[in-house]
């Protein structure tokens, strides 16, 4: 199995997590190199979102998580964020009763005042169209704009690894491209990205490497430029021995 050339920024070993008695993830192994873009694919209910939550500490979990040389196995979301591991949660959940600007200020909670202001501006620079609406309440934004705001919130912290959970969900193709373009830009700027995405083609276009998650565990790891990836993916999805002729 090919792994990333660079030394890993995020290293996850036999991670297990779930909700109450329901175990969703077991024995997940995963790594992301510095400045690398990794796509996390898998059918619904495979546990992609759960995995991101477990990594960022929003969910209780067992196993080891190393980030930037630090042991984050028992860290909460606060520590993750301050270490530069930022999680943009699914479904563009922004604070609708606050203005765009306030939403971003909150993302910089705890930063020194001056730095906060500056980094908020940097984040806004990625999304000119919400930059214009900085004084509007977030509730007045369209779904796509809210998603951009959510991503922008993620950027305020100048993350070393940005985890995006289905940024394309419920967005028009145009907007999807815009959001993913932003992701690509970040990537050029040296930020590593872990992207959960339904739209495989777009994901593959953005990422260097791909993991497939099914039934709560990693069933495939590959470089995006490898041949026959779709077939292998589908095999992985439907479980061992599933034969799935893709006819056109």
């Amino acid at each position, binding site marked *: 199995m090919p792994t990333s050339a660079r030394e890993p920024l995020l290293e996850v070993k036999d991670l297990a997590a*779930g*909700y*109450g*008695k*329901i*175990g*969703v993830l077991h024995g997940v192994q995963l790594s992301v190199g510095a400045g690398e873009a990794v796509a996390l*694919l898998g*059918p*619904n*209910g*495979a546990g992609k979102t759960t995995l991101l939550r477990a990594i960022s500490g929003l969910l209780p979990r067992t196993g080891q998580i190393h980030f930037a040389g630090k042991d984050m196995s028992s860290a909460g979301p606060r520590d993750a964020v301050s270490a530069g591991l930022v999680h943009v949660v699914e479904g563009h959940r922004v604070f609708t009763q606050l203005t765009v600007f306030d939403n971003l200020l909150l993302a910089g909670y705890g930063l020194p005042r001056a730095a906060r202001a500056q980094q908020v501006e940097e984040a806004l620079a990625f999304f000119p169209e919400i930059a214009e609406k900085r004084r509007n309440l977030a509730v007045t934004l369209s779904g796509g704009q809210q998603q951009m705001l959510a991503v922008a919130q993620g950027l305020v912290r100048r993350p070393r690894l940005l985890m995006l959970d*289905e940024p394309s*969900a*419920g967005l028009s193709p145009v907007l999807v491209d815009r959001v993913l373009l932003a992701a690509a830009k970040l990537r050029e700027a040296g930020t590593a990205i872990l992207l959960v*995405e*339904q*739209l*495989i*083609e777009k*994901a593959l276009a953005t990422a260097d490497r791909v993991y497939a998650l099914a*039934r709560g565990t990693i069933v495939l790891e590959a470089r995006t430029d490898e041949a026959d990836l*779709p077939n292998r*993916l*589908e095999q992985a*999805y*439907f*479980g061992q021995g*599933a034969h*799935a*002729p*893709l*006819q*056109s």
Partner: protein
Amino acid sequence: MTDTTAQTGNGRPKGYRSTRYEGLLPFAILAIAGVALPLFDDSYIGLIATRACIYWILVAGLNLVVGFAGQIAIGWVALLTLGAYTTSVLTAGAAMPALPPYLALLIAAVAGAAFGVIVGLPALRLRTFYFAMTTLGFATIVTQVALAWKSVTGGGIGVAGPVFPSPFEPGWGFYYLCFGLAAVATWMTANIAASRFGRSLVAIRDAEVAAEASGIAKPLLLVTVFMFSGALAGIAGGLFASLQTYITPDAFTFDLSILFFIAILIGGRGSIIGPLLGTIILTVLPEFAAPLVAWSTFLYAALLLAIVLAMPGGIADLLDFKNRRPLERHREVVPRPEMLAHLLRGEGSILSLANVVLSFGGVRAIDGLDLDVRPGEVHGLIGPNGSGKTTTLNVISGYYAPQSGSVRLGDAVLPPGAARARASHRIARTFQTPRVIGGASVLDNVKIGGTIDGHGGFIEAMLTLPRHRRDETALRERALLALSAVGLESLADVRADRLQHSELRFVEIARALMLSPSILLLDEPAAGLSAEEIRRLGALIKSISRAGTSVLLVEHHADLIFDICDRVTVLNLGKVLAAGTPDEIRSHREVVSAYLGA
């Protein structure tokens, strides 16, 4: 040992009775102690014991409201006050010709029942804390009225309590009256607790949605229970007045209300013996700790806080030895589909959705959906997150009323919304996260599913009349059958919260089977199950459908879907993307792109 009993022919696990009587032991001890008490020949003990009996008569009823239905009724002293004044005023004959005390007591019970409904009514509409506040309000208002309405209640001067004639004259005679009534109250509440009504109350408390899906009528049930507990409180009030010999409003302190309430919680919700012991302890304790008297309410509060934070199960948990016996590790759920024949009637009918539209705010969660689920078939419903799968289930089972379109079963049109009515159409379902009553046994959890098939009424249950007993035996037989069908019969007596997640999924299916459903809706039953368990689940579902039930299966596990479904419908953004046989579907280009995103 009963946890691992083998299944016998008639479907009753061996040793079940033994565990049944285990629970009766404490009652027996208390009963003997109660009868023998006069041998002490200490009237002081007699008085305290009488007081405990009277308080218990009220608490016994309140227990169904607080402990079983989980309604936070803090101000129940209001009903004690009402009962006390009703009895006293009627016997005193100040307002009208004097009545014999027993008749007055009866009237107090009726008044209590009526007022109980009034005090309880807000519970049907209001959130927990709001309801607690309203009962508090009632507690203050009643005393206020007692003070203001001088002509009848004597205002602050109060009235003399009733004196019961021989053989129940003051002293031991009166004690025996109270003890007898307390025993009857215990018996009746225990009967209700063990009946489908008691189970339904707990279901409303811990799994309201599942209760609704099982056709349990929350409003009616709660009103009945408020009536019952109001009546008991009224009687307790009459006896209280007699014990006090003379009542003034300042006898009905809020502390008394707190005592009743806390007695139940330290006793343990959903238990009879616990609150009974709790009442005895709280009544007796301050008497024998004279220096602490002034601190008693302080101690009650401390006790309550400790219970809530440290021991939510209360005394009842300490007495629950049965559930401390270790369970067999590495259990395996082995369904026995052959049992299904006894459960299912094989008269499934076709379920069809026509052009159903449901939108929340601007978002169209379901957008003109057509769907047919045929008897004897497993129909898979798949699609990406937010494509409207679960929403569809919720429309069928009546949690959501679609803005347009129709849901028909056979040729009957199902009323939009009206979740509770679905059970009578034999529509059963399971939930994404199992909705089971952790504190109740697996068997009782399953019995919930068959609630609507009971014929006996509340009164019959209260007095365990034949028809009710027949209901219970039938229910029990069916429940054990259902459990053996899903392969859990060996865990029948275990408290549900001790089961593994995978087992809970099968419990839910067993509960659904109790309806002998014509339509079975399964919401991600395979989530969190191991590959082997999924295989068994698949087999079970398949044979359920083969027994004539129409099964609608929402599932993410593609392999399970393609394994057992006869037809599959793929949703995307609330619309049907494709429908057909599994093979058609998996070779369907758009599906693959939408579902797999290739």
